[in-house]
């Protein structure tokens, strides 16, 4: 195994990791575990099944996620880069398969593989990581002496993102596409590409979005969600219902919340699938403003440390990849919490570290591992 793992100063890698990052990420996972427990226990109890079923599965997933994170952090840089295309190809193939009948439909989005033991696999979560690493490799390997990628690299890197995005749009999972879009822009901008690329891409996204709505390329489900976002009262018992119940849950949390397991809105199952995309409403209700703000600040710390690692590393790949991870965590968190707070449309993206779901946890902890890897290498 010694050829896989980084051997330099092997004994001190543990100390050289970004401890603030690790602590913030662990704190988020800890709170997430508690909230998943609190959000699922009453429902499971009323169904007469094991009330800790979700908690147990989540803890198992989290342990695997942490191990994956350590694995990525310890894997030698060259190996990571060598295997990044494998990860990307694997993601692309699974994204292709997931839209076939092999995949599983949830709320009109076909984004999951059903695994034994109640587990599911969501390839688009891994695709984010694959795209960050893939784009970073392409953009970092520029032949130009000033280190700024040329048009060829930019187009190639966009291709790295475009294929998975196209497949994800077929699911269709608009939220993940938005996150990948933000990540792509962040990666490109940090790689130093000419501003015209950034402006052009930004403009292209706006035009594409307008065209999708205009020419009916959005599914009815997506369109409804957007309309309901603009006015939740138009449909209080269907799509808008979720938004209203989520707002009631968060709003009634007050400063300190009702305490874990004590949220009537959560215990009454007024918010559907609360352990996944709407987990923040359980945080808001049961832990109040103090808990909700703590989560936002912890996520900001994680993103901040990622940016710090990006800023401090001299390695071009590391700089670009760390920025991509930072943008990913930050934007996905903003998208998720924003929709819970009613300032972003409802799109199905998980809240990093907090939401229940194996793929998300694996991908995010692997991303943390990547950040630590970059940090440790820089400290060599």
């Amino acid at each position, binding site marked *: 195994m010694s050829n896989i793992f980084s051997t330099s100063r092997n004994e001190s890698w543990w100390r050289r990791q970004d401890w603030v990052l690790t602590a913030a990420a662990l704190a988020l996972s800890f709170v997430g575990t508690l909230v998943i427990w609190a959000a699922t226990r009453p429902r499971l109890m009323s169904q007469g099944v094991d009330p800790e079923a979700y908690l147990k599965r989540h803890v198992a997933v989290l342990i695997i996620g942490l191990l994956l994170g350590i694995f990525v952090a310890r894997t030698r840089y060259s190996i990571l880069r060598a295997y990044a295309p494998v990860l990307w190809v694997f993601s692309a193939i699974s994204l292709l398969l997931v839209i076939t009948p092999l995949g599983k439909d949830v709320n009109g989005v076909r984004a999951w593989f059903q695994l034994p033991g109640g587990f599911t696999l969501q390839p688009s979560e891994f695709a984010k990581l694959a795209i960050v690493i893939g784009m970073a490799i392409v953009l970092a390997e520029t032949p130009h002496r000033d280190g700024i990628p040329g048009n060829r690299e930019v187009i190639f890197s966009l291709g790295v993102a475009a294929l998975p995005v196209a497949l994800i749009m077929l699911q269709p999972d608009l939220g993940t596409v938005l996150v990948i879009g933000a990540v792509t822009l962040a990666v490109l901008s940090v790689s130093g590409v000419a501003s015209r690329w950034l402006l052009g891409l930004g403009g292209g996204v706006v035009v594409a979005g307008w065209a999708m709505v205009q020419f009916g390329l959005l599914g009815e489900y997506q369109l409804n969600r957007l309309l309901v976002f603009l006015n939740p009262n138009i449909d209080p018992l269907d799509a808008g219902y979720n938004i209203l119940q989520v707002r009631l849950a968060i709003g009634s949390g007050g400063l300190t919340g009702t305490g874990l397991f004590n949220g009537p809105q959560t215990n009454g*199952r007024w918010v559907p699938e609360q352990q996944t995309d709407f987990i923040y409403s359980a945080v*808001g209700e049961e832990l109040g403003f103090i808990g909700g703000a703590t989560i936002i600040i912890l996520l900001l710390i994680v993103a901040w440390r990622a940016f710090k690692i990006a800023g401090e590393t001299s390695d*071009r790949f590391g700089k670009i990849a760390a920025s991509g991870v930072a943008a990913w965590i930050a934007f996905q968190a903003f998208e998720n919490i924003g929709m819970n707070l009613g300032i972003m449309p409802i799109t199905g993206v998980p809240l990093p570290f907090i939401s229940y779901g194996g793929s998300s946890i694996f991908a995010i902890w692997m991303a943390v591992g990547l950040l630590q890897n970059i940090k440790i290498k820089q400290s060599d």
Partner: protein
Amino acid sequence: MSFVDHSYSRLVILRVLVFSLFVALLGRLFVMQIVNGEEFKNQAADARFRSVVIPATRGVVLDQAGRTLIGNRRAMVVSVSLTDIEALGDRGKTVIKKLAPLIGIPVDELTAKLSVCGEKGAAKPPLCWNGSRFQPIPVAKDLALDVAVRIKERQHEFPGVIASMQTVRVFPEPLDVNLAHVLGYIGPVSDKELAERAGTDDELQSTDLVGRSGLERFYDAQLRGNPGVTTYAIDRTMAIIGKVSETAPTSGSYLVLGIDAAVQKVTEVELKKAINRARNQGFAGTSGAAVVMDVTNGQVVAMASYPTYDPRIWLDGVTAAEYKRLTDDAANSPLVSRAIQGLFAPASTFKVVTTAAAYRAKIPMGSTLYPCPSSIDIGNRKMTNHESRAYGNISVRRAIEVSCNTVFYKLGYDMWLRDGGNDPTKPQDFIEKMALKFGLGKKTGIDLPSEASGRVGGRAFKTSQYEQYKDVWCFRAKEGYPSVAKTDPARAAYLKLLAQENCTDGGKWRGGDAANLSIGQGDTSVTPLQMAVLYSAIANGGKLYQPRVVKAIVSPDGKTVKATKPKLKGKVYISPSLREYLLTSLRGVITDGTGKTPFANWPQGRLEVAAKTGSGENGDKDPTSWFASFAPADNPRYAVVMMVEQGGTGALTSGPGVRKIYEALYGIKGEKLKPKQAVIRNSRPAIKLPKVKSDGSVEAIDETKRIDQVIKNLYGLN
């Protein structure tokens, strides 16, 4: 610029961007939870709590001695919890199928009963449930105990089915009293009432029963008590997930009436007998009423109305056939209480008012004699001496005793002349004003709903009538009655003449009108209760009490007792000499006048009765029989008024009934006074109230059992 410079500046931009996004999240979170938190909290609570109402036990109604007039009974009621059975795999189909034969109703009907009105697919009212779906729905009442036992024993086979004892209303009818018009009845609340009282302190629940008439209606708020409310938290599937709060119901208050069941029994029996007497004399005797009142405070001691009905028919919801029978013309509206809603000309009983007015007008009375011919001419009308005959020259006192109309015509006419006759200048209208002072023409304010106000047919009324109809009269005066003329030209000509007269002079207060008013005829109408209040006022020296049925309201634990204070509605100045004059005259009615026949051999020396008869002219119909009285004349306690519609004379029809009531009140046997035979203890309403104990049981006042036996012996009751 190199890669490093570029990436550095862009990293800064990215960090600023991310930082602002997170600050925006924090700001939004702050607004939602801290700024608008309360509002969200309330909204959320509305959405996830449901209240279940536990009805309060309705208050008990007692007579003045403590006999239960309206009570409650425990009945085995089977209810079904909709939320429980709907949670079952087959949504309760098996349970319904099993329960239906057990409680003896078809499966379809039971299914219909278990639908919530207004929900999709629900049965139509009254089959569907008008309450909350979280409230157990009662599906069967008064089941045999073994049904309940079977449900309880095999509860696992009947999930969501509850067999429990609940209270339902009963009329124990002590001493066989009916008292239907006073007690009233209850019925399910209407949507309108629900809407009207929503949000007020007296909010109703859709499952409530509310008073529909009588005391049940007037004292509904006191009798209803406060329902208990249990609030449950529910989840989005509407399943109950926990209890949030619970308040126990408080029972309604006890009403202690001034009415005494024993006196009431006598009054009801005597009223019925008077009706029969009228019919035996060949009169129609269509309806009647009798009121016994305590003149010292306005407490009603007994109040009866004929025809009556069985109050129990309302208990399980009146059937269509029963309701038709009650409202049928042939039944002569038994739901109407003649005592407070029936309006009749007071006839000669009104002469006390005319006498008081004449006294006020300083018309010479005392020894002044007036001619009492069989008729006199007033204006162009010949006015006769209906129930009386010619007596020669007599005093006003004697005219009261023998009820000579012609003397009173003269008194009324003289007062009219003093007011200026046909050309009045500042008319005094002594009779009209006196009648109003005695409370006629307006409600007495008794604590019963739907009282009639009646009217004083004086100058003011005639003017208002004229204002209302003159356009029609004057139109007819010009145009005549062409449609009538086709078939009956003579009648048409007469009607046209009448219209012409009315058009020009219809508003004029004529001498004939004044004469008619003086004997309580014409447009004047009164309720028997108003006459009881009026005679009470004469008896007590002019005090016009607001009549009261309820004597005290006692809290369900018996601790708080709110006694009704006598309320003076008005005072008529009756000078000692007028009082003496009236008393002498009214006593004379019994000893030497129209009341002598019914009060033959009356021990006036032991119990002096003052009275006035009346026989109201009623167009083509038989006259209204009146007998208004009070006793003992020197220290009055009771006023007793009886009226029989189309009953003939006051003396022959109502008089004997009033006599019997006094006999019962004072225990008069033959010419002897036997206080032990009185149907009310010490012959007067008790000062002491029956005692309501903390467990809700009632201790009657002393000697109630003995008196019950007196009544039972009197009427051969068991």
